[in-house]
């Protein structure tokens, strides 16, 4: 079915039955404890051919090809988890990489839609391996906003090509010590570029929609986002199934958000992941903030079998700040593995991070966080909160909210975490107002997650997320939909 050559073609390099699959560029589900030993699973021979082929297909400049090679080397050498704090909490057993054949050839579809939805400043839709829609408002277009694929930008915008190169070269927008980020950097088959020039302030959000889910296929991508001085924008990223779920091989979405905010820039980034349950999602989000730059993440994960994400906030510029809210609502045997690093480097920076999880059935949440306050970061204000609700006996939550502090001159450096069942007094209170028990419980859980939902920029998208969250609620235990009058 695929016109793309398989990633690895070196005969005999891999174990029987695995040749040519993602197993060779990614570890094949080792037990958590062996996480550090598994880097040898990365077979460079096949992947080397794959990156050359990717560069060729996209007629990439030499510097980008060099980037891929460097990343492949790094990815091969790195353990699954480079931070010894977290090695015990890496679990890829649910991933069947050997079933997945990632796309190599991507690009614009033959038929492209250019219809801009109501209330959006821009739209880009990727369906499996093709860009199927792309649109920008006239205002954004005339202001010089860019929303396009990397090959198109490199071909058509020589000025931006240099800018993009300067931003990403040498892994500047991805963590050097993260195997997953380096796999994306080496093997990205589809790059996207979002650029908002200095001084441009977009009123409405840019929507980027990813639809994947073809059994046995995967999309590896990078999204490069830069805002010039004083620019302001909001981005909504939606991750959806491309086909209705069918039993069969797993599918994969492996991508990044690489954000660079110049002095005084402001970005609201919201994401909602609602993949089908046999999809694997690997996400790296990395942001570098200049002086006085402000970034707000609102990230919700509902779907997928395994959602593994790492967020790096680099607060470099004086007075920069990040506000991050993240939720995961798990059911079945889903695992949300959510890591976040916040590095305070500049003076008077602030970080406010909140993660919340609700877990049903046998689902699990790993919340791994690290606030790092460097010696240069006087006047830091940093908070990290990790809160979970376990709704069933077999659900599990792991929270590791860590702090490393080299500069005591802080306004605030604290974290807090709690795990608990639904508060029975709250249930009683709602029941006393006429709500049936199950509905009361559901309301409390929705209220627990609402602070993240409220931060999604489009009203429509907010409603959709509320719907997704409600759908998570087990149908058999849900009683009346409307409270008694």
């Amino acid at each position: 079915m695929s016109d793309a050559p398989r990633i690895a073609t070196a005969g005999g390099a891999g174990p029987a039955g695995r040749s040519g699959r993602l197993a060779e560029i990614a570890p094949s589900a080792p037990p958590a404890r062996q996480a550090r030993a598994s880097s040898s699973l990365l077979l460079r021979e096949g992947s080397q051919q794959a990156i050359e082929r990717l560069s060729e297909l996209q007629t990439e400049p030499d510097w980008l090809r060099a980037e891929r090679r460097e990343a492949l080397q790094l990815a091969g050498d790195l353990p699954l988890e480079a931070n010894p704090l977290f090695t015990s909490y890496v679990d890829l057993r649910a991933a069947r990489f050997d079933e997945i054949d990632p796309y190599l050839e991507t690009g614009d579809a033959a038929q492209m839609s250019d219809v801009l939805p109501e209330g959006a400043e821009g739209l880009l839709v990727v369906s499996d391996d093709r860009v199927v829609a792309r649109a920008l408002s006239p205002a954004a277009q005339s202001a010089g906003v860019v929303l396009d694929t990397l090959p198109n930008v490199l071909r058509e915008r020589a000025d931006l090509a240099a800018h993009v190169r300067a931003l990403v070269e040498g892994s500047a927008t991805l963590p050097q010590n993260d195997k997953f980020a380096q796999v994306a950097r080496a093997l990205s088959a589809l790059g996207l570029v979002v650029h908002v020039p200095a001084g441009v302030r977009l009123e409405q959000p840019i929507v980027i929609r990813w639809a994947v889910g073809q059994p046995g296929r995967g999309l590896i991508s990078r999204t490069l986002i830069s805002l010039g001085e004083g620019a302001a924008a909001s981005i909504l990223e939606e991750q959806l199934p491309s086909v209705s779920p069918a039993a069969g091989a797993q599918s994969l979405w492996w991508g990044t958000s690489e954000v660079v905010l110049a002095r005084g820039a402001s970005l609201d980034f919201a994401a909602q992941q609602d993949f089908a349950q046999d999809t694997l999602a690997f996400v790296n989000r990395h942001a570098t903030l200049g002086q006085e730059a402000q970034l707000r993440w609102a990230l919700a994960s509902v779907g997928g079998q395994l959602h593994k994400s790492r967020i790096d906030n680099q607060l470099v510029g004086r007075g920069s700040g990040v506000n991050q809210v993240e939720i995961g609502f798990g059911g079945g045997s889903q695992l949300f593995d959510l890591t976040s690093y916040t590095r305070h480097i500049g003076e008077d920076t602030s970080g406010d991070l909140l993660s919340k999880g609700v877990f049903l059935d046998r689902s699990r949440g790993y919340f791994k966080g690290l606030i790092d306050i460097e010696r240069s970061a006087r006047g830091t204000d940093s908070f990290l909160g990790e809160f979970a609700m376990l709704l069933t006996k077999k659900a599990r939550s792991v929270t590791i909210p860590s702090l490393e502090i080299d500069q005591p001159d802080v306004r605030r450096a604290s974290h807090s975490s709690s795990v608990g069942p639904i508060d029975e007094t709250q249930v009683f209170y709602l029941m006393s107002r006429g709500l049936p028990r199950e509905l009361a419980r559901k309301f409390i859980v929705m209220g627990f997650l609402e602070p993240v939902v409220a931060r999604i920029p489009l009203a429509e998208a907010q409603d959709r997320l509320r719907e997704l969250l409600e759908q998570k609620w087990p149908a058999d235990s849900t009683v009346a939909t409307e409270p008694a009058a």
Partner: protein
Amino acid sequence: MALTQRQIVDNDRSKFDFKDELVYLHEAKRGLTRETVEEISALKGEPDWMLQFRLRAYAHFLKRPMPTWGGHLGDIDFDRIVYYRKPSEREERSWDDVPDKIKETFERLGIPEAERMFLAGVGAQYDSEVVYHSVKEELSKLGVVFMGTDQALKEYPQIFEEHFGTVIPPEDNKFAALNSAVWSGGSFVYVPPGVDVPLPLQAYFRINAESTGQFERTLIVVDKGAKVHYIEGCSAPIYAADSLHAAVVEVIALPGAKVRYTTIQNWSNDVYNLVTKRAHAHEDSTVEWIDANTGSRLTMKYPAIYLRGRGATADIISVAVAGKGQHQDTGAKAVHLAPDTKSRIVSKSVSKDGGRATYRGHLKVAPGATNVVASVRCDALMLDDQSRSDTYPYIDIQEDDTTMSHEATVGRISEDQVFYLMSRGLSENEAQNLIVQGFLEVFTKELPMEYAVEFNRLVKLEMEGALG
């Protein structure tokens, strides 16, 4: 006894800042071999099962890699360590060998003359010897056993074999394996069912005659419904001849028992203090761990309580002060394995003059441990720009009706508070000292009065920089 070896202690990183080269006497062989282990066992006239236990531990020690987390362990040279000294050889060092700074610290802390000799490892403390003997009489009337671990192996072989190594197996970690292979000394406590020991058992008095070991092994068994408070250590710096201290402490609280273990660690600042301490709390028992670390170059110590029986309670207060050249990597673990269990962890750390204080904790609620209530609270105070503070809590919950809360804060002394106190006539240093003492009060208020007084005096000296 001849002078056979000359050792230069790395002075630069020592809080006490001693400048002298130290010379001490011994004739024991350095380094660890299977023969050393066999020799220790033979010298002690141990039963065969203990020799086999030691050898099993030794095999594991060789196999087990050094931990790659925690503090910097690269400078430990296992071949330079003397693994066993016969008690009679222990007092061969003379008072003149003790660095002036240590002597001065004793002076400032107001430690009596005889006690100073004991703390410096150069003499027995005869006053406490007398106290200990009267304590012993009273205890034996109650059926309480309180003696050296070696002696207990001979006199109470049954209780010993039943419990020894059951809480911390040799395979637990590299340093527990090392201890299990070469252990010597330590305390053994057995409290019979229903006995409430009216006074704290102080290891300080018991070990007077034989000095404290570097690889001591403590086993505390508190039988059903019994109650005891065991105290180890003291605020004055303990001067060590070798730079590695790897103790193992096992505490067993049988159903309904209540045990409190209090320890103040103040090794001199060239010591690696790598200690494994763990308690098993059975049904309806309570284990309290009150732990302070002010000395050593590097301490890695995470007192753990395994809540194995329904209704058991764990309470851990862990305090660390990291000064110049020190890394206190400490914390606590509570592992809930049974329903209706409770745990509370409170950690307070102070780092100053480039010291590093790390909290590393683990809270686990295993499947089946329903209706657990747990809390972890960590506060850190950093007194200057050169110091560092880390917090690494691991919280792993696998039951849906768990109630867990965790809070952590890190900060420096509030200038407002200092200003306020100074406006009341205190000097800046006095004000800071008072604030630090207040910060650590959660710990000091749990100490017997004389310990609390001494500990506060120690903190005051640290704050004044009077210790170097």
